[in-house]
């Protein structure tokens, strides 16, 4: 969890569903100006973010919320929830299709902690990774779906795709040559492990659309088809 305390009176935290911004008690126009300028300053960090705002006892009208939502939307930020202690505000939020405290922040109480094994962290993405999507992750990425042309995945670790790889992938972006890339069907626009690219490699043109695992062996990319393993 990253917490960045601004000069102004609000805080920003990461939580499961996006970013949680707790706003201060000043005049609403003032708070909004401060928030928007903060977002503009850190536009890279906020770009594409989903945001919930915590407003405490403050009562917000639908028009004020809609205004905030439009202003955020113009800056590439999606407002999806307004958390407040006021029932009036909750009703207003719901009328705009925003989530409220009731529908967000359900704590995980299952009792399952982190695995006791010495594994590496990974994220599981159960969807098609579509054109225009860029996934940058410090760790390993597992995709249960296709990676379409125009999509890219960059990881410090390995990439596993239970589907068709047709976009661009780069494993081991920090130089680790022990990473692998696996896919069920293989037709990438570009592929790279550490600093070695498949572009220009003769094997690249001969790639079969079959389940494959790609590793680095002797400073070259090695292509290992699943069907040859038997």
């Amino acid at each position, binding site marked *: 969890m990253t917490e960045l305390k601004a000069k102004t009176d609000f805080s920003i935290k990461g939580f499961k569903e996006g970013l949680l911004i707790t706003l201060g008690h000043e005049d609403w126009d003032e708070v909004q100006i401060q928030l928007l300028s903060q977002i503009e300053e850190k536009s890279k960090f906020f770009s*594409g973010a989903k945001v919930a705002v915590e407003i405490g006892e403050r009562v917000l009208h639908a028009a004020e919320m*809609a*205004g905030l*939502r*439009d202003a955020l*939307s*113009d800056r590439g930020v*999606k407002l*999806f929830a307004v958390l407040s202690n006021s029932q009036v505000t909750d009703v207003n939020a719901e009328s*705009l*299709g925003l989530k409220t405290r009731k529908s967000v922040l359900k704590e995980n109480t299952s009792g399952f902690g982190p695995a006791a094994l010495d594994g590496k962290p990974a994220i599981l993405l159960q*969807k*098609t990774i*579509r*054109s*225009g*999507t860029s996934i940058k992750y410090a760790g390993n990425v597992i995709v249960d*779906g*296709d990676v*379409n*042309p*125009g999509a890219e995945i960059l990881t410090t670790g390995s990439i596993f795709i239970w589907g068709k790889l*047709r976009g661009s992938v780069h494993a081991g972006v920090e130089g680790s040559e022990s990473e692998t890339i696996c896919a069920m069907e293989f037709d990438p626009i570009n592929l790279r492990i550490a600093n070695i690219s498949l572009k220009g490699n003769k094997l690249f043109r001969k790639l079969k659309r079959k389940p494959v695992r790609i590793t680095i062996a002797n400073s070259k990319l090695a292509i290992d088809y699943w069907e040859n393993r038997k």
Partner: protein
Amino acid sequence: MAAKIITITSGKGGVGKTTATANITVALAQLGQRVVCIDSDIGLRNLDVVLGLENRIVYDMVDVIEGRCRIRQAMIKDKRFEGLFLIPAAQTRDKSAVSPSDMIQLCNEIRKETDWILIDSPAGIERGFKNAIAPAEEVLVITNPDVSAVRDADRIIGIIESEEKGPARLIINRINPEMVKRGEMLAAEDVMELLAIELIGIIPEDEKVLISTNIGKPVVTHEKSIAGQAFRNIARRLLGDDIPLIDIELKDGIFHRISRVFNFGGE
């Protein structure tokens, strides 16, 4: 009952958003539905031309939003079809004249008085597109069977998913069965395989579409047009009818490959 709000979008320009909006609107009206179509392409309005209502415009959407008229005054009644209204875009303004909240409010105002609201989206993924999908309950993505249109459709579908408007449904427009047969055009199943969303209709290439667009009389009014039939089928599928794609296939002896992937009601 409140109207169902549907936005028709594509990413790429020129794939047939406006033509599809006009034809589905008219097809729904012909089925006895009350329909309001909204042209959200502020500055580049077209839907009025395709519907042949261009010379009836007095007020437009921006006039409503900026309070210069009531919404009723901007709704142009199409005298040929009972229950069909158009809210035109402003031609002399740009996308920044409207916000996503304005669109939501506009739709909420007319929701009770109609069965369907169809929104014609501008091309691109910027403000105009965001405005168009803000009020939508369902999004129809239209594409052509070519690589660049499909790539843009993929991007759009991704954005719709992240805005939690999904799952979008797909219209493949301007399929030319002869070219598909010769392997010169992507087949519908190639498009489906990449985009991986539900198909709601395939519109075959039909020169009557262009002719009817130019005279402001949507092709769906031609009883014999094959594209018109395809649009009528989409309208009926929106109403929940189970219409197989076989209709078109039988008439012209085409789409044998498509019928395999396109299995309505058989899931």
